[in-house]
């Protein structure tokens, strides 16, 4: 069963621990101190935005019928055997045409024009328990890593509870 990152916006305090952990996980040294000293600054692939007074972490959903895969004209963006969508390790290399950046509705694919490379969540950060670094770093459990089916079940239950609470 494929697992995905479930975000509970009401729990996010905007501490950006997920952003930091993501960047470190994608560094050469895989450690915070090491990452700081690297010539090539490691890049985060999760973003905590602010909308009014809410903190909104946003990351790749690894969409079914992913528009970034449809749009890729270089054969780089693909789905791995585990279901992750990535432009790393595909049949061809990413050449930075930015078609994926143009179609991602969440704005979670970054463009690095100098390197001619798009950068996105590749799930290449799972620990020995299979947990992504952003989820592991979240102190408030705003980010959880759950089975896709459980995900929708949990969301449905939450919705029903809040709807019932409003009725009462």
């Amino acid at each position: 069963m494929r697992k995905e990152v479930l975000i509970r916006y009401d729990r996010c305090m905007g501490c950006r621990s997920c952003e930091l952990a993501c960047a470190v996980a994608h560094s050469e040294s895989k450690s915070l101190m090491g990452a700081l000293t690297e010539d090539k600054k490691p890049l985060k692939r999760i973003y905590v935005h602010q909308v009014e007074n809410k903190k909104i972490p946003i990351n790749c959903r690894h969409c079914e019928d992913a528009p970034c895969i449809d749009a890729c004209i270089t054969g780089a963006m693909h789905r791995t055997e585990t279901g992750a969508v990535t432009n790393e390790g595909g049949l061809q290399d990413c050449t930075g045409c930015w078609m994926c950046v143009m179609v991602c509705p969440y704005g979670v694919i970054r463009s690095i024009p100098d390197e001619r490379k798009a950068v996105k969540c590749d799930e290449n950060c799972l620990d020995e328990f299979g947990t992504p670094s952003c989820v592991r770093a979240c102190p408030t459990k705003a980010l959880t890593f759950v089975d896709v089916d459980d995900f929708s079940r949990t969301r449905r239950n939450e919705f029903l509870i809040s709807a019932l609470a409003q009725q009462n």
Partner: protein
Amino acid sequence: MNVVIIGNSAAGISAAETVRRLNKKAEITIISGESLPPYLRCLIYEVLSGKKNLSGIYYRHSSFFYDNRFNLINGRAVEIKPEVKKVFLDDGKELSYDRLLVCTGANPIPLDVDTQNIIGVSSLHTYQQAANAAILAKDAKTAVVVGGGLVGLKAAWGLTQRGIQVTVVEKASHILSRQLDEKSSSLVETGLTRLGVRFIYDTVPIQFITDKNNRVKKVVLENGLEIPSDLVISSRGVRPNTSLVDKAKGITAKGIVVNEYLSTSLPDIYAAGDCIEIPDALTGEKTPSGLWPLAVEQGRYAAYNLSGYKRLYPHPITNLNAAQISNVPFVSVGTINSEADHIISDECPKSYRKLIIKNDKLIGFIMAGVVENAGVYTSLIKSGKLISSKLKEKLFNGTLTGADLII
């Protein structure tokens, strides 16, 4: 079920894969006019530049046809007879089908000058053309690219990287006139000018002067200029290839006409990709589809419909382009040249952003130099959402993110 697909590129391949996913038992035959594996047509300029060969532009493994149990037939379909449900090939072979999908793509628009017996004049539509032009480029010192669209500029860039002096001849007053406005195109132009590319506007070639071996040597322009040129790349754009459906008396206009299920006017015949015309989501105007991402999604929708799973294909945005030519990335989406209530335009020396707002909806945008978060703007256009004052502020100051649309 016996499915025959004419075409071995974006639409055809995505359709074949989808039919297979939906129906493990279906007999699937793909007719390919080029006897090559599926390749990335948008990358053939890299073949011209000498940076890549065929193995660098494949987009499916060599075992792809075998693994998916697709029958691959190399040949050209020359006629469809809907009344007997058969396709006829140039070698006399005939194939029966239960459902037929036409993905015949588009053909390059020829130059107005006859170039039939001239060596060194080529369009850049197939891998073979790019490979042949690359051989000619080896001893070329000068080249002319006719047409300053995406294909032409990528070609100009590729040839420049080989050390060739390139001149781009453009009929309009600026390059990329279908995607960009004057200001954003000037950023791209500057990037290429720095690399040594020259631009000549508002004119077209009227004559090619050749040497005794019929190799092109000079291009004479309508404005009187003569440009030395050992190689000419013709990139005036493409036209949907509708000939098979025309001949079978199916309805065609600018492209093959399809309904919302991508079905043609002929029974059990569907069409997808660059060969069709489709109403634009924003203007309603029927436009040749002509984009890789649309071809991929149409292939998938057509596959669902011809397999018996009805899936309505929503009208797409037909201007949807991104590229980076030299050091200037750009994105162009939606209606960019239209009457608008509001146009926001930011200019920095190295970047440019233009948003077109009509009836409180975002209908188009251009980003050049910086393209971060472009997909959020595309999504806002697609959603047709009314722009609240809060959202407008974020659009104005460029701080719109994906989070603004999901809350």
